[in-house]
């Protein structure tokens, strides 16, 4: 099929960017979206132009590297997948596809469609861990039974791939879903409860420092999350935060 691509091009972080139009032909329905961009780039390189820069790595929906706002939605129109899992059969011959980077003040553009998500890193540095030593002996893994429901809920929160679609989808560019997923994973486990107070206070403080917006519960993040991380996590983080604040 033949498509028209409108792609955000920006030379580097300090330059002003703009939307550029590229026609592309010979797109196959079995191609993934990123393979379609590979074809585009091949053509651009052959014409002596700069290929479009975008983040990607595992191409199987788990590393969280790929991003892209496709036709106004993070990871494109399909649900519960990342851009690398989106296939071109989802589009029709003659379609125009608008491709932009994930946009947030806390996700500055590095080049073209590649953004800097190190704000997420810093939130995790602030408290995304349990303070146990990694070497040497610890108690047996089965010493503390954990209710299956809690373990499963913790896993569901931990399934977050840190792609940033929640921020991109949120009209306020809020990072609450991401942060709450990490807070929840640990808050739901007995091992994580020990330092829950410190963790939630520090992580939320860092999140605020990074310049993300405030959560207004629109729920867009949950809908667009490729891993289906639930809004319940945000509610849980609010609870955790409130009780942590009251504790001091």
């Amino acid at each position, binding site marked *: 099929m033949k498509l028209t691509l409108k792609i955000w091009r920006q030379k580097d972080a300090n330059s002003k960017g703009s939307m550029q139009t590229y026609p592309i032909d010979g797109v196959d329905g079995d191609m993934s979206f990123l393979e379609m961009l590979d074809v585009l780039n091949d053509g651009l390189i052959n014409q002596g132009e700069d290929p479009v820069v975008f983040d990607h790595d595992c191409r199987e929906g788990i590393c969280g590297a790929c991003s892209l*706002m496709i036709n106004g939605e993070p990871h494109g129109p399909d649900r519960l997948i990342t851009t690398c899992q989106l296939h071109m059969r989802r589009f029709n011959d003659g379609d125009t596809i608008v491709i932009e980077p994930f946009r947030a003040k806390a996700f500055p553009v590095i080049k073209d469609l590649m953004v800097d998500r190190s704000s997420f890193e810093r939130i995790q540095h602030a408290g995304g861990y349990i303070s146990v030593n990694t070497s040497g002996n610890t108690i047996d893994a089965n010493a503390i039974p954990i209710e299956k429901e809690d373990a499963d809920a913790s896993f569901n929160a931990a399934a977050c791939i840190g792609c940033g679609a929640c921020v991109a989808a949120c*009209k306020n560019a809020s990072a609450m879903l991401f942060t709450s997923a990490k807070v929840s994973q640990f808050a739901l486990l007995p091992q994580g409860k020990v330092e829950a107070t410190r963790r939630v206070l520090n992580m*939320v403080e860092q999140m605020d420092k990074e310049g993300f917006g405030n959560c207004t519960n629109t729920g867009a993040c949950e*809908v667009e999350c490729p891993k289906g991380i639930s809004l*319940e996590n945000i509610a849980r983080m609010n609870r955790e935060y409130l009780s942590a604040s009251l504790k001091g």
Partner: protein
Amino acid sequence: MISSSIARKVAMALSGLFLVFFLAQHFTINITSVIAPDIFNSWSHFMGTNGLVQGILQPILIFGVIYHFVMGFILEIQNRKARTVRYAQFKGGTNSSWASRNMIITGLVILAFLGLHFYDFWIPEIVHKYIETHPEDPTRYYAETVHKFESPVRVTIYVVSFILLILHLWHGFSSAFQSVGFNNKYSKGLKLFTQIFAVAIPVGFIFIALYHHFNQIPH
């Protein structure tokens, strides 16, 4: 504490819930103007003259309203700053409700309406009670209220405002529970309740307005 995003959001939720409570109370009194004007007069008289209501509840309410609006603005400004370059294409409609994305619009209209409402009712009341001195008349409320709905323009504004209030409550009421951390197996039922409330109360107010408009009593 109020400097953190979650604290602000909780404050927003609590003030909102307080206003929702006030709204329910306001409606309960107003609906008596349709059912039983005498009760309306006596309740209005109580609210208008009781020291506790006037001296303590009323300031708290005004503070709640102002706080909710000011905080709403601050949040909106911050949220806009969180995305400096806008998207060329943004399909918010595919993943969230219009009401949830446009609380600032519905809120602003409601604010404007509140201005009108204050001009219509509250200021004359204050003037009537505290600036000019009138002999106390516990039966004046009903007629005054009904006469306010004589003008079709005012009624139209009133109706439109309440439609926007539906939208504001549609998202805001249930959202407040999420903000204070309430999201569990009861949330589905609670959400249904909030949505019924969000429609029923403003529609009730609209009904009252239209009822009085079409059932005017002589001056």
